[in-house]
Each structure stands twice: as structure tokens, then as C-alpha cells.
């Protein structure tokens, strides 16, 4: 009987494997292969450039591997080939140095013009400052005075250890999406508060790093209304995979309406800080803040992660002097992942989360921290 060579046996193996894979649950059927064309003028140019280079590579591959394949078929001892003795050809060697250079130059020209366009951030209609934190985004609309914090949606967070296929836009949904007006040049100023992150929405055609101590620039001009999703693209620690970006592109009117609505909410927040809060109210809000802002490190049960993030349960800080606790949460601790929350959280939220930490997880200090205490602490800090 004829023995099957490894090669033949393998090909039937691949057929079986392919069948197995294709039979996987159709719930995830999405065999995406290529870069999205995107919705900005730049993203389309980038896509075209990508396809151009790809096809050039494919063409070179066909020629090079084709020659090699012919050689393998014809110049083998098994078909009686005799080895030639040549080992040099000036003509060939010059040709295969010069031709690649010519090809490279044809690639470099469109690449250069595109790059020049991408780096031109002048004449923007709107500026948004993006600050990255472990692990959320802050967006400040400079002209319109709106500030938005955006973090992984609770629906996704709950599904991580359960069934991700059940939630819509798993890991690509946030609690507060941002809105950009279509047909407006939006300039993004990127920075970070703790470690390096990168802001990336594939449909907008570009990503850029957000680096502490630096401000990077990038611009976009969305042509089509819609919802565009992206993710942080630079390893930023434990929850790097869990900091999505959602941009809704809408008409100018819708954008204006959204700005007005956000401003109302901000005013309400400010009003809330004025009155005195019940402990139960503070605890309820505090838990919410804790879950979104603190639990990624200190964990939902307050036990932290040994060696990385300390436990809040029985913590000396959370059961010790109130001022020290406040200071730590507001100013953070330099050189550790415990960052300053003073600027990120409002007075009410800070009051609530500190109250929560001092009374939850068996930390029965009984302390109630009013928002007024926080604003007093802020004034003290600024020396006012």
C-alpha cells in the first residue's frame, strides 16, 4: 500500500480543522478581514494607501514565490536536474537592488503627502481635551465648557465572567458616550494622568498616545453620522482591555442639544453639593462611585489584590484620621497607581466615596463626610 506522506496527511487534517472551525456557533459569525474604510476623508486615504501597499506586496510575493516554486518543481534532483555552477550575475544584482528602490519611492510619495495632511491640526472648529486615566477617559470640550467622564459600561463589566455574547457591544460600550458634530474639524489634545494610554477609533483612521506630562494633537472630521467605537491601544495596566471609547457623530443641532443637556447635569451636580446629605444617601452614591472609580483596583469586596492594591477592609487609612484619608484620595500617592481623584470626582462624589469606604467592608467608623468638608479641603489646598 502506498504510504501517505506527511504533506498529504496534513492537508486532510486542515480540511477537518476548517470544518470544525466553520461549525462554531454562528452567534459570533464575523470573519472580518480588513481595515475599515472609515468615515473621515483621512481614513479613506489611509485605507487606499493600505490597499495599495498590500497589493504591491502581493504582486512582489507572486513573482518571488513564483520563481521559487518553478525552481522547486524543475530544479530538483528527483527529476534529473544537474546543478549549474554560476554564483554571480552583476546584471541581476543591480536589477534587484534598483527595482525595489523604485517601488519604494512610489510608495513613499503618497505616504508623505498623506502624513503631511494628517499632521495639519490648524483651523479646527472645536477642541476637545482628552485625559486618560487608569482606566477611563475624561473629555473636556474647551469652547463649550462640557466635561464628560467615560468608562466601561456596567453591562459589559458584569458579563466578563458570565456570557459576553449576551450583551450588546461587549467591551465596546461606555457609560457616557461623547458626541462630535459631523462635518466639523475636531482637534483632540491628548494627555494622561498616570501611565501612557492611546486613543484609537479605527473608523476615524488614526491613533495617538496620551502621555503624562505631554500634550499630543490629532484631528478628525467625521462625514457620516453614526456611532463609532474604539479602545485604548497602549498597554496601561490591569484593565487596559477594558477602556473603550464611543463617539457619536451627530448633526450640529443634535450636538448643541447634547451640550445643553450635559450642562444642565453639571449644574445639578453643583447644586447637590450645597445641601447637607443623609448618611444612607451618601452610602448609596458612595457605593456607585466606588464601583466605577475604585473597584478595578481595590476590588468590589474591598479586599484589594495582595501585593498590588491594598485592601480597604480594615485599612489603616480608611479607619484612621479622616483628614489623612481625604488627602490620600484627593491627592493620590506619587509613584504608585493610587492617583489623585481630587480633580476627577466632584465634591459630592468624593464625600460619598470616602463615607462609603469608612463605613463599608466592616470599617465601622460611623463617620459621615459632607460635600462641604470637601470644598473646605479644596480651599485649604489652594491656599485660598
Amino acid at each position, binding site marked *: 500500500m502506498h504510504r501517505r506522506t506527511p504533506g498529504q496527511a496534513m492537508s486532510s487534517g486542515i480540511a477537518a480543522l476548517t470544518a470544525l472551525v466553520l461549525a462554531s456557533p454562528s452567534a459570533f459569525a464575523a470573519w*472580518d478581514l480588513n481595515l475599515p474604510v472609515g468615515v473621515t476623508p483621512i481614513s479613506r486615504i489611509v485605507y487606499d494607501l493600505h490597499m495599495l501597499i498590500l497589493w504591491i506586496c502581493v504582486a512582489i510575493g507572486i513573482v*518571488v514565490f513564483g520563481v521559487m516554486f518553478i525552481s522547486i518543481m524543475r530544479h530538483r534532483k528527483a527529476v534529473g536536474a544537474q546543478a549549474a555552477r554560476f554564483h554571480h550575475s552583476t546584471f541581476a544584482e543591480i536589477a534587484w537592488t534598483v527595482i525595489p528602490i523604485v517601488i519604494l519611492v512610489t510608495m513613499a510619495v503618497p505616504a508623505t503627502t498623506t502624513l503631511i495632511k494628517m499632521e495639519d491640526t490648524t483651523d479646527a472648529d472645536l477642541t476637545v481635551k482628552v485625559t486618560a486615566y487608569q482606566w477611563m477617559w475624561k473629555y473636556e470640550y474647551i469652547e463649550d465648557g462640557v466635561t464628560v467622564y467615560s468608562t466601561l459600561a456596567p453591562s459589559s463589566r458584569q458579563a466578563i465572567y458570565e456570557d459576553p455574547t449576551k450583551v450588546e457591544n461587549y467591551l465596546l460600550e461606555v457609560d457616557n458616550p461623547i458626541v462630535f458634530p459631523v462635518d466639523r474639524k475636531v482637534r483632540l489634545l491628548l494627555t494622561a494622568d498616570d*501611565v501612557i494610554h492611546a486613543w484609537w477609533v479605527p473608523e476615524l483612521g488614526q491613533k495617538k498616545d496620551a502621555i503624562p*506630562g505631554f500634550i499630543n494633537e490629532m484631528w478628525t472630521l467625521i462625514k457620516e453620522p453614526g456611532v463609532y467605537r474604539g479602545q485604548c491601544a497602549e498597554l496601561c495596566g490591569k484593565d487596559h482591555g477594558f477602556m473603550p471609547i464611543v463617539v457619536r457623530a451627530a448633526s450640529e443641532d443634535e450636538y448643541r442639544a447634547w451640550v445643553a443637556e450635559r450642562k444642565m447635569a453639571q449644574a445639578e451636580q453643583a447644586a447637590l453639593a450645597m445641601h447637607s446629605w443623609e448618611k444612607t444617601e451618601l452610602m448609596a452614591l458612595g457605593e456607585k462611585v466606588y464601583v466605577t472609580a475604585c473597584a478595578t483596583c481595590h476590588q468590589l469586596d474591598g479586599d484589594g489584590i495582595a501585593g498590588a492594591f491594598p485592601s480597604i477592609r480594615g485599612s489603616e487609612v480608611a479607619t484612621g484620621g479622616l483628614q489623612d484619608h481625604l488627602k490620600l484620595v484627593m491627592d493620590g500617592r506619587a509613584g504608585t497607581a493610587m492617583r489623585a481623584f481630587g480633580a476627577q470626582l466632584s465634591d459630592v462624589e468624593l464625600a460619598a466615596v470616602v463615607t462609603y469606604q469608612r463605613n463599608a467592608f466592616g470599617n465601622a467608623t460611623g463617620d459621615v463626610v459632607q460635600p462641604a468638608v470637601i470644598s473646605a479641603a479644596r480651599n485649604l489646598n489652594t491656599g485660598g
Partner: protein
Amino acid sequence: MSTSYGAHADDHHGPEPGLLRWLFTTNHKDIGTLYLWFALIMFFVGGFLAMGIRAELFMPGLQVMDPHLFNQFTTMHALIMIFGAVMPAFVGFANWLVPMMVGAPDMALPRLNNWSFWILPFAFTLLIGTFFLPGGAPAAGWTIYPPLVLQGGANVAFMVFAIHMMGISSIMGAINIIVTILNMRAPEMTLLRMPLFVWTWLITAFLLIAAMPVLAGAVTMLLTDKFFGTSFFNAAGGGDPVMFQHVFWFFGHPEVYILILPAFGIVSQIIPTFARKPLFGYESMVYATASIAFISFIVWAHHMFTVGMPLSGELFFMYTTMLIAVPTGVKVFNWIATMWRGAMTFETPMLWAIAFVVLFTIGGFSGLMLAITPVDFQYHDTYFVVAHFHYVLVTGAIFAIIAGVYYWLPKWTGHMYNERLGKWHFWLSTVSVNVLFFPQHFLGLAGMPRRIPDYAVQFTDWNMVSSIGGFAFGLSQLLFVYILVQTIRGGERAADRVWEGAHGLEWTVASPPPYHTFEKPPRVTEAEAHG
């Protein structure tokens, strides 16, 4: 008996019996063997971590490990594969082969050689031991960017010291190789008669000496930033986190050529042998290698196009990176021209070498795509990059190492390996490695970032395919170990010139070679040198 007589007697007889032989050996063949075993073990440690990563990525959601452990796995996987598997494997080849190829009795600095090796097990014990520290192993990626890496605890210190030890080991090894090649050649072994493997290692050794101290400096600054209050990379203290990336990649890009030039050397030995035809364009191969090495020092910032460089900087690094494709192309064309009108046979080493040429070239194509800055803004830090560097590292460096092992194993052990099993190993690995890494191009283009433990559901299908390929590739490597052990234990006797078309001094000595070879410099004819 005085020790100097003892040492002298050792020169003429075989190795010392027992385990101490391996501890105290200064013999280049023994040390080569130690390096190769060490690399194989590290390949399996790093491979185990890779299997863990692929298991977690098989499905969306977290099933196998939490995100913090996942980050430790990717970081340690890469550090172990690069510094523990690929680099020591190439040094193992250099130890075994460089003296035999240039007609020298041993390496120029044998005691230094012993040290270079024996530092490594200690370095890796330190590094791998960090898994058992509170807070775990380093988790900031093998690129160890601050400020993130500084959020690690004690592991920062362990990792920095481990990297220092690896660096010392590499630099000592590199010095030894340079001195051996420049000073110990047989009189008739002129520079342009040296086998290409020797040339590529000579150039690699210079890269090592230039690059490793840069890494050592960078990690030392991390150490003082973390423990001694300096602010080299801390913006709040007036430092610059991007500076670290520049310094790191000034090391890092030459490093990737350290990982591939010796592979070029190995493949340039194998293809002429099985094509039964001299290497095409020997001199242009040497010049291409040297120009790649030079250009590799002026392309580093192509790893950091998204950090926000000035336009002129981006253009400069784009052009230099594209330029490096030219000498790399010359190499590929030369290999194919060597095959052209040869009389080829396809024994296992040749199969691996041909797969190297094809798959490394695919990695080169994706590299060229990544060089185009405006498009790299899309590709960067996605699975497209993961696919790219695995094509050049796994189907490049690792495939060349395996090709070289099959090629010289009969020389080293005196036994032929099992050809049928070798072919099975080849086909299983080549198919599975493509199932493993090719779909990662699609994932990256479709928008999946790298270094994430969990992903959106639309990435599920290709991740499943990739994981299945990964498990198959991992399992196939067990066959490799089986073949190795089988060959070492016995098998058909290998002739001195194991392969019909092989040329070079290593084939003029017995298989296995005596403990000491070329105590008198051999004659070197043009025919033996170039075939």
C-alpha cells in the same frame, strides 16, 4: 600534580567524567551543547506561557486567568523567548560551529565562555522567580515602558538585575566570538572565505556590543526612578517618559536584527548544500548583512510613530525603515538564485530553510506595510503587529534554529535523525504556525488591540482559529524533543560529510567530532570554502 599539568592533560584527553564536566567546562562544544539545551528548556517555558495566553484568548470573557496575571504572562513570555530561547540558541550554534568553521581549536577566551553561559541560569531564576513575589512578575510588556512598569513592586528590581546579567553574558559572548573570528582563523581562512554563518555572527556580535549597554543604561535609570527618587522618566519630576522609549528602541531595533542575522547565516549554509550549488552572491550577502546592521541603528523610532513626533522625524524614520527592505530583499533574491538551476533535494533541514524564506518574507511584507507611517497609525499596537513579529521571530528565527539543528545534529551526535519523523515535525509545525499567526493579521486590521486579555465578540472566530493553531504548534514541538532524544541515543551512523553537497571545514572532521578539533590549523581550499 600541579593544576597547570592537570589542565594541560585535559587538552589531550576526553572530557572529565560526571556532572562537574558541565560546570567547569571550557570546551566550546560542551558550552555550545549547554547553550542549546538551555534554549530548548526556555523555549518550552515561554511556550507554556504562550499556551496560557492562547487559552485565555480562545473565547471572549475571562476564563483562565485575571487580567493582571495575563499581563504577566505576555511580558514574561516575550522576555523568556527573546533572551532565554532565541539568543542563547544562536550563541549555542556559534560556540559549536564558529571554531570548527574557521579552523580554530576552541574559542579564544574559554574561561570567559564558561562564565557567559553559567550566568544565564541565575539570571533566569531571578526573572522567573518574580512570579512568586507579592504582586507577581513584571506586567508592563517586554518593552517595560515607564510609568507603567514602575507601578510594579519588587519585581522591578529583580527584572533589572536579571537583564543586567543577561547583558553581561551577551557582551562577554560577543567579545569572545569577535576575538575568535578575527584572531583564531586558520591561516588560509581569509575573511572572504569564511562561511556566511561566521560573517553574520561577526556582525551580530558588534550589534550586541553596541546595543546591550544601551538597554543596561535604560533599565538602570528605571531602577533609580523606582527606588532612589530620581525622575529620569517621570514627567512630574521634570523627566520624560518618551525618552525611555527612544533609548529602549535604540537598543530594541538592533536587537531584532540580533535575533535574525544568525538565522540568515544558518539558512545561507543550508540552501547551497541541498541545491548542490554555491551560494549566489556571497559578497553581496556580506555587504547586505553589514548594511542591515548599520541601518538598524537609524530606524528605531518606527516603533513609536504614535508618540507624537514632529513631522520631519516621522518622515525620516519612515524613509530609513523602507530603505532596510532593500538589503533584506537582496538576501531573499540571493537565496532563490542559489536554488535556481540547482539539483535540489528536500531533506528536513532544507524544508525548514525553504519555509523560512517564504514565511520570513511574509513577515517582511507586513514589516514594509508597518513602515508606512500614516497607515501604521492604524496598525500600531494591534494584532497586526503581533502577527508581523511572530512571522519574523517564530517562522524566522525559530525556524532557522530548527533547520540548523537538523542540519548539524548528525555532525554533533554522529547519528542520523529519523527523516520521516523530521518531515512530520516540519509539516505539522508549518501548517499549525500559519493557522496560529496568519489570522492575527485579520484581527489586527479588524481592530483588535494587542496585549488585551479579553475582546469584543466580533473577534471570536479568528481568535479560536489562532488558538487551535497555537495548541497544535505547541504539541508539535514535543515531537521535536522526541526526535532529538532518539538521535542522541542512537541511530544510523552519520558520515563525516553528512550531506552530499555540504562544504566547509566542519564537514572535514569526524561525526561526532573529537573533543578537540583543529589543534593544528587545517588547509583551506577555495573549493572547500565556497563549494
